[in-house]
């Protein structure tokens, strides 16, 4: 029942978002048909292309046909590349999706242990050091970090490629190699935020009597935090991860620019410059939908972790 309501809400949000995106595309200046045909195009040819692209149909009809297509996995045809937008996005997703996953994994991989240690060593040197680092990580713009990484590791040390993506067919190792620095640049600010959240949530949970009780049972501090404080800190952490996902998407778009990665973000910028409306609409919708869905997933997971909500129906 609860899950069904969540799903309905999700669907409504996605629908509203797609409508918003579609409307936004309508106010863009520059005629896509004109752009497509270039400097010396014939007005008759432009008009013909407009008809072919369906730009002369009423707006509701255009929206319905676009949304209908999207629901069947067809995002329309790219004006610049003349190939299906879906193919174009899938081609780019093999860069962006692994990048985002690596970014999330890395930021969690950094934030969880560091945040936990900082919480356990509250007020001690390790805590101060971790929080200082987190504050620093929070303050550094990620594109700047990306530039510095390129400069140090690619230019000066020559350990990693400076940018670009060799493709998965050049070998999984090389492809991952090209994504490591971007993932680090992407993950550091996220990790900084998450470290602080992990620490705060765990510290808050640590102050609860049940952690003290666990220690009174004979648990040492570390295990008491791990078994008792952390499970209860998960819900706020997950909620924040969900809320942060929008930042992550923005960050990924910027980072793709810094590292010249052929991902969805680059596709978006190119499409904006070329007024490739179908691609812009498609990518924006996919990114927005991802944010919405990840958010909902995190919320759902946080609720599922909390037995109070999970067993609400039976209690």
């Amino acid at each position, binding site marked *: 029942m609860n899950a069904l309501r969540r799903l309905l809400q999700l669907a409504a949000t996605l629908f509203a978002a797609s409508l918003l995106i579609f409307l936004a595309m309508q106010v863009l200046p520059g005629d896509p048909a004109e752009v497509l045909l270039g400097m010396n195009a014939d007005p008759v040819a432009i008009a013909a292309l407009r008809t072919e692209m369906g730009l002369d149909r009423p707006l509701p009809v255009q929206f319905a046909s676009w949304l209908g297509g999207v629901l069947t996995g067809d995002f329309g045809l790219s004006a610049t590349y003349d190939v299906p937008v879906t193919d174009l996005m899938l081609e780019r997703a093999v860069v962006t999706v692994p990048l985002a996953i690596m970014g999330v994994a890395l930021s969690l991989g950094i934030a969880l242990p560091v945040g936990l240690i900082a919480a356990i060593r509250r007020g001690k040197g390790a805590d101060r050091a971790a929080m200082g680092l987190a504050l620093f990580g929070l303050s550094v*713009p990620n594109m700047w970090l990306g530039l510095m990484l390129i400069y140090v590791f690619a230019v000066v040390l020559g350990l990693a490629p400076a940018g670009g993506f060799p493709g998965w067919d050049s070998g999984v190792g090389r492809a991952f190699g090209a994504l490591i620095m971007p993932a680090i640049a992407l993950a550091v600010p996220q990790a900084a935020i998450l470290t602080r959240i992990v620490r705060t949530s765990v510290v808050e949970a640590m102050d609860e009597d049940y952690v003290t009780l666990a220690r009174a049972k004979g648990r040492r501090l570390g295990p008491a935090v791990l078994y008792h404080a952390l499970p209860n800190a998960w819900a706020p952490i997950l909620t924040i991860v969900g809320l942060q996902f929008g930042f992550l998407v923005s960050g990924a778009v910027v980072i793709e620019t810094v590292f010249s990665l052929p991902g969805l973000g680059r596709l978006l910028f190119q499409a904006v410059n070329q007024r490739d409306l179908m691609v812009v609409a498609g990518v924006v919708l996919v990114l927005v939908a991802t944010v*919405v869905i990840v958010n909902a997933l995190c919320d759902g997971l946080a609720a599922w972790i909390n037995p109070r909500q999970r067993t609400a129906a039976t209690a």
Partner: protein
Amino acid sequence: MRTALALSVLCVFAVGAILAIWWTPYPVDTMAIANRFAGPSLAHPLGTDQYGRDLLSMLMVGARTSLGVAAAAIAIGVAFGAPLGLLAAASDGIAGALVMRVNDIIFAFPALIVAVILTTSFGPGAMNAVFAIGVFNIPVFARLTASSARRILALDFIDAARLSGKGKVRIALEHVAPNIAPIILTQATTQFAIAILAEAGLSYVGLGAQPPSVSWGRMLNEAQTLVALAPQLAVWPGLAIAVAVLTVTTLGEALRRRLDPRFQRVRVA
């Protein structure tokens, strides 16, 4: 101590930014290309940029844009978000749920996406950055206001006020607003720090401030290819962004400690 330091740094930044409205050591709209890439000197404490403009003057003017955009964006976020949140908290029924739903939809659009859409529609510019970051902040403040207000509204003194015959608006102003203001203020500092970074990011990818206006993010963008030639061009704006964010975050934390009863209370059972 740390707070005092942060406060004075912020004051320096703010004074510099405000001063730059009327005066900078050198004008930033004239170029002296012969004198470009000059190192630090008495005349130019931080050196000059690729057009021979004084870097200190550029940073001051840049601060105006960067801090101004951030401040304006937060103002938008609070001005729209807080009343919406109050409305949502006060009306438990459909109106409240609707407000929160709209919020969710707005929240689904990351600032960068909003900036992309605005840029494609109206061309790039600092105002886009203000709106994009502002729009992104509305649901943040709406959610925070709604949850804080709900918590306050559940307390006994609200009932006491109702029993004294006070109306909803009066209770909101007298009892709810003063008690959630510190929470919102604290969040505003956090969001302000994020907004500085967001502005830098947008300017960096060309969706924010445009020439001839100067912003830290744009300076960083332009300095990119010059890193080998004149590293100071990238170092100063990068540092300015980092220090500004660091300062604001530190102040926000100090504020949180002062205002949050959890930090005041020593747990003595």
